[in-house]
């Protein structure tokens, strides 16, 4: 069976419930199963990409650091809404992990090309 294109549309801040972690876990396992995994960071999910998170201050695991493991699992297609970054005054340089900026139109056509889209 050919690998399927699975996109994770991420919209939650890193410590907004367990959503960011549980999406990340699902992405890693999907990568292990040799599917074509990509991720799209929208809205408050761009906060996940900040480099200097100190999650231990609130007794949680560090989401920014965990994202750096994605390339090791073959997940390198990380897309980020450039308008979501701009609205929050976040510079695309110096994020926790290398990403590709996309416009709203590019994000929409990325969604359209998928076999499966999961939200997290």
């Amino acid at each position, binding site marked *: *069976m050919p690998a*399927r294109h*699975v996109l994770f549309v991420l919209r939650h801040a890193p410590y907004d419930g*367990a*959503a960011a972690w*549980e999406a990340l*876990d*699902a992405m890693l*396992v*999907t990568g*292990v*199963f040799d*599917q074509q995994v990509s991720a799209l960071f929208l809205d408050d999910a761009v906060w996940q990409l900040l480099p200097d998170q100190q999650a231990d201050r609130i007794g949680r695991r560090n989401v920014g650091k965990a994202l750096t493991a994605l390339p090791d699992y073959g997940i390198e297609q990380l897309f980020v809404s450039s308008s979501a970054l701009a609205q929050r005054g976040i510079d695309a340089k110096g994020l926790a992990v290398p990403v590709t900026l996309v416009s709203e139109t590019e994000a929409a056509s990325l969604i359209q090309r998928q076999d*499966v889209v*999961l*939200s997290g």
Partner: protein
Amino acid sequence: MKYSLIIYGAPHVSQAPASALAFARAALEAGHELRRVFFYADGTLTANALTIPPEDESDVMQDWATLAQAHDIELAVCIAAALKRGLLNAEEASRHEKSGGNAHPAFVITGLGQLVDSLIDADRVISFHA
């Protein structure tokens, strides 16, 4: 068509397990195949056998168990999501030295691999969020 459903919300607190149940019934009625439903995030709490539904509200857990038995659907619950929400079966309870489990026997506690297996296999994947 082969369908795969993922449920992310808890019963009585979100509509997700109830909406997914209504969808599943309609899909089966339309002749579609549904071999597995995956319970993730707060959706894992659907399997909590200690839940006492409020009066006048339906018993979503029991309704899922009944549908699953009638149509041979696997009710798969993500173990990592379940443990941190305090949902265990007897085996996990004994491994973690807890007095006993609270998962209803109609549900199988399993890994995320089963989620991916569903994604690979299905013609359509429908997510029911909180």
